[in-house]
């Protein structure tokens, strides 16, 4: 009788441990229905035919008496970035409840303070998923953002952040332990995402020449890490519809398991 290999046994046990996590068990047939997803960005064009009726709430940051406060927003999206992100999220999860938290635009200074206030607003209002295709490189926001991320983590709010497109760290994407950080790759199926365990930016999703919604009712093809991030936010919304009580680390575990499966599948395809 052959002796069993302990390493092989451990590997098989691991396979069994994650064996139940498959696309079928997580997002198959899901639409993200009722999942609250905040887009902290430049606003969303709520009149765009593809986004109409999907934006449950639209607020805008303004400074009053030296403090950042949020008022209902009717100014839309003058930059296009938030609308583009919203289009990608709803492409993956068409029935999510979008919440637009506008922190960039004509009335916003574009400061880190507004960005932090927007994130704080999303956490306080119990968003389940927050799309942060933005970040800051200013070191003074390192500490406050860290605190906010801890609050989000304990509130069960899943933050998805885009990596900086430039060779410079940006916050919060480098806080990889408590959020899902995403970098772009060319083409491909958004569900066939990758996971770079051990890297600062862990998830890899399409972000090159992505066709998405643009203010005014049209569509654009856009490139940037900003647009890889909402694909993962949409996929997480599907998972959250199936399992609404998942914690951030459980969601990351699921993404890791499925990305590993994606990688195995890709490696199994014979190379020409």
């Amino acid at each position, binding site marked *: 009788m052959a002796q069993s290999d302990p390493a092989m046994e451990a590997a098989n046990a691991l396979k069994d441990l994650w064996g139940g996590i498959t696309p079928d068990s997580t997002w198959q047939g899901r639409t993200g229905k009722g999942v609250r997803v905040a887009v902290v960005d430049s606003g969303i064009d709520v009149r765009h035919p593809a986004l109409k009726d999907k934006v449950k709430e639209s607020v805008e940051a303004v400074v009053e008496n030296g403090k950042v406060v949020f008022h209902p927003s009717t100014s839309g999206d*003058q930059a296009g970035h938030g609308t583009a992100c919203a289009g990608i999220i709803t492409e993956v999860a068409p029935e999510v409840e979008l919440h637009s938290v506008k922190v960039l635009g004509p009335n916003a200074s*574009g400061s880190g303070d507004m960005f932090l206030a927007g994130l704080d607003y999303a956490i306080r209002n119990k968003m389940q998923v927050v799309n942060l295709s933005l970040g800051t490189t200013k070191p003074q926001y390192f500490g406050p953002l860290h605190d906010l991320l801890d609050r989000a983590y304990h509130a069960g709010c899943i933050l998805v952040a885009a990596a900086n*497109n430039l060779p410079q760290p940006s916050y919060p994407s480098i806080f990889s332990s408590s959020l899902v950080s995403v970098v772009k790759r060319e083409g491909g199926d958004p569900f066939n995402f990758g996971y770079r365990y051990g890297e600062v930016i862990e998830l890899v999703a399409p972000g090159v020449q992505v066709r998405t919604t643009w203010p005014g009712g049209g569509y654009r093809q856009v490139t940037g890490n900003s647009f890889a991030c909402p694909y993962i936010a949409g996929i997480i919304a599907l998972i959250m519809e199936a399992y609404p009580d998942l914690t951030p680390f459980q969601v990351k575990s699921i993404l890791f398991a499925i990305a590993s499966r994606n990688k195995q599948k890709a490696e199994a395809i014979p190379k020409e």
Partner: protein
Amino acid sequence: MATKKSTKSKSDKKRSKADGKRKAREAAGSLEDYLKSAVRAVEVADLLTIPLTHSIQNLLQLAAQSLNADAASVLVRDGDEGGLKFLVAMGPVADKLMDIRIPPGRGVVGFVFQSGQPMAVDVSQDPNFYPMVDSATGYRTLITLATPLRVGAEAVGVLQFVNRSGWEHLPEGTPAEAFTPEEMEKAAYFADAIAALVDAHETASLVETLFELSIKSAGGGDEIGNALRKWLSEVRTAPEHKDLMALAISLRDIASRGDAERQLCREVLDSLARYTERGAFSTTYMSF
């Protein structure tokens, strides 16, 4: 008593006349100081900003060639609210761009400036796309790549590329060759170099602005202030300005070599001044 009073009054008059002269001399002195400051400010601002602008233009040209772009521009901060203006532009409608202002947070460049995130957009498949800048210039944007200009963690402007060279010769409906992620990285390297120059340019421009503000606050709306402003504006547009600046630089260089050189220089200039008093040389350049 009356005589004494009258004598005193005479001496008072004398004193008052002397005071008046002294005040006039002081006023002339302060005027001279203003002039010196004006010359120095104009000299510094011009000497610093012109070569910097040329360097930015050269780098922009190189960057556009490297990315095979039809047009490219450097936009810088316009005020404190996040607005942008064109500092340098190249391409078919470069001249028209220089008067355009981008309001805060508007369009791709407004977003890139506020967010600090680069972005490439392809609008070639959307015939309805007609942004504000296109409507002002008559140019048609098909693809664009914008990347922030940053000094440390601070955004100082945006570097933008538009369309590929020769795009206008392509048959109608041909998809544009969008900017790639590799080109986005390349643009970031050019942006780093340009940002340092833009930062230096801003500092030089600040010298000029501070001087103008000091004239405004010191001169107020009075005669001296108005005359100085008028003179300064004439100085900037005068063709002789460059020659005089070059002369001023030469004098400064000679003066810095030592007392004997300074003395010699002064004698030569005094002779020149006496000669020009005869009417051989006249200009309105230094006149108010």
